[in-house]
């Protein structure tokens, strides 16, 4: 089955996309052959390693979903792919679902694993806010999948570059329905996704002041600060600090979880951590069964002491 990988070079997480999609095509039993990457880019950054032997480069003014979908639809008859793979970020999910509809195929977002079974594709993905894993059978191709990150290892050194099949310049004015558009870059989120050390706060932080102190501690000990959804929804921490199914899914070597009960949606965000340390005042909190080592007590008091030990290299 021919396949296409779509990468959005206009996003701040291109390295994560490249890593995750490369991981997918290298998995044992991957059903795709003769793959092509469609790389959308704004011509600013150097082109990254792509996971396929050939590539189509498409220069765009910016990521504009309706225009990108038109380009993908136009390229589809030439590439004749039965499988489209996208990253699991906002753009990847949007493109997978809408392209699947436009090509008369089937789409699924958040796919953790998949295998070809005759003419159909069996896919596994998390449902029920990360509590359950569902297996779906997709019958109608082309199959358009947004692939969930599983925290793959960093890419090896780049090999030979891909054969560039086409190098298209599709810079154009925004569609008529967009009267103005302003983008505000936010590099912080990408930093959290790639962090090797994370300190994540939950509602046990209790208030905005204590949450801010935890963010300071994170900085003092060299960790990226993250927060659960209730914390950011209360505006105790900025939204770009969100860890979980709808936020960053980092793969740190060490993750300290302070005051988060361990809801499935949050756990999905930290489950790729190599080592999890949890602090919670409720000894029944689910997080204490899902960590490597934990302590029961006030999260900020213990964290202050822990930070002192880390700083001093005790």
């Amino acid at each position, binding site marked *: 089955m021919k396949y296409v990988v779509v990468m959005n070079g206009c996003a701040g997480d291109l390295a994560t996309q490249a890593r995750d999609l490369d991981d997918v095509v290298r998995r044992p039993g991957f059903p795709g052959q003769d793959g092509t990457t469609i790389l959308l880019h704004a011509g600013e950054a150097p082109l990254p390693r792509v996971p396929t032997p050939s590539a189509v480069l498409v220069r765009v003014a910016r*990521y504009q979903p309706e225009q990108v979908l038109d380009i993908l639809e136009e390229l589809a008859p030439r590439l004749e792919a039965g499988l489209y793979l996208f990253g699991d970020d906002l753009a990847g999910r949007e493109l997978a679902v809408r392209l699947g509809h436009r090509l008369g195929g089937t789409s699924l977002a958040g796919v953790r694993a998949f295998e070809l079974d005759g003419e159909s594709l069996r896919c596994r993905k998390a449902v029920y806010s990360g509590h359950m*894993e569902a297996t779906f059978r997709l019958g109608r191709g082309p199959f358009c999948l947004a692939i969930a990150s599983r925290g793959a290892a960093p890419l090896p050194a780049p090999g030979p570059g891909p054969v560039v099949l086409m190098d298209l310049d599709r810079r154009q004015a925004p569609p008529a329905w*967009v009267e103005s558009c302003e983008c505000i870059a936010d590099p912080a989120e990408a930093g959290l996704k790639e962090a090797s050390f994370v300190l994540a706060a939950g509602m046990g932080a209790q208030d905005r002041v204590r949450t801010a102190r935890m963010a300071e501690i994170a900085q003092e000990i060299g960790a990226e600060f993250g927060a659960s959804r209730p914390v950011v929804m209360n505006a105790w921490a900025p939204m770009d600090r969100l860890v979980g199914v709808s936020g960053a899914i980092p793969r740190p070597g060490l993750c300290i979880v302070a005051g988060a009960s361990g809801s499935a949606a949050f756990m999905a965000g930290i489950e790729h951590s190599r080592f999890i340390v949890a602090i919670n005042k409720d000894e029944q909190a689910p997080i204490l069964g899902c*960590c490597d*080592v934990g302590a029961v007590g006030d999260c900020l008091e213990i964290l202050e002491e822990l930070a002192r030990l880390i700083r001093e290299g005790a």
Partner: protein
Amino acid sequence: MNVLVCCKIVPDLDRLSESDWLVQDHGQIDTGFVRTMVNPYDETALELTLRLADAAPARMTTLTLGDGQAEPFLKTLRALGFDPTVRIEARGDWRFCPDRLAALIAAYIAAGHPQDLVVMGRQSADGDNGKTPLLLAELLGWPCITGCLGFEAAGAGRLKVTSRVDAGLQVQVARLPLVLAVGNAAGSALRVPTLKSRMLANRQRTEVLEPDPGPDRPGFRQDPVLEELTPIRRRRAGRIVTGADPCALARALYEDGLKQHLEPR
């Protein structure tokens, strides 16, 4: 401006303990013993729409698919100014059927309920499909802005929309019609109606539309099809350290694993 907000009533899944996740016949999970709530992303969609209507005239309709469990929530929404509140009686298993749901919403709009704006959460807590607003936009042939964090009127037939994109934030002035898929917007809990408006809402009724057979509809072919559900287990060693005070607990955590996983700075 006519605004349609689509919302779903879902179980509060965080109230289920690990042992409650039992798969029954036909891949069903019994969640009937926990409280229900408006799907969190949909709650944000409802509140953001109320803020739009605070500043500019808007006729707000809310549409849900569900059974009588939705009624107390719809009454609250009537008290907040949504008129009409519409419920399509649900039959069959709709959890993983966003294609059919999007078609149903499109059909409602086409059946004499024209809209300028459709707002809904990006995904529901149970199905986690994340597809309905996107498929609706495709069916209507309208643009869709995802990751929406807020919106306000920006002159006749225009909306200023702030949304999260993968590279940061985006602020667009967009011409209607539009579909907005609402993401995580801080400080967007649904407001509480006054007692007076709640009593007034008692006088109105939900418009209940003909039941739709959903995935069982003749001629409709569900794709993807659910084959299996299994609980995700995330258990780890969970060694709990002991100590007389925060200082001792921190020391125990530090010595019992944390230190070995610190990277040299």
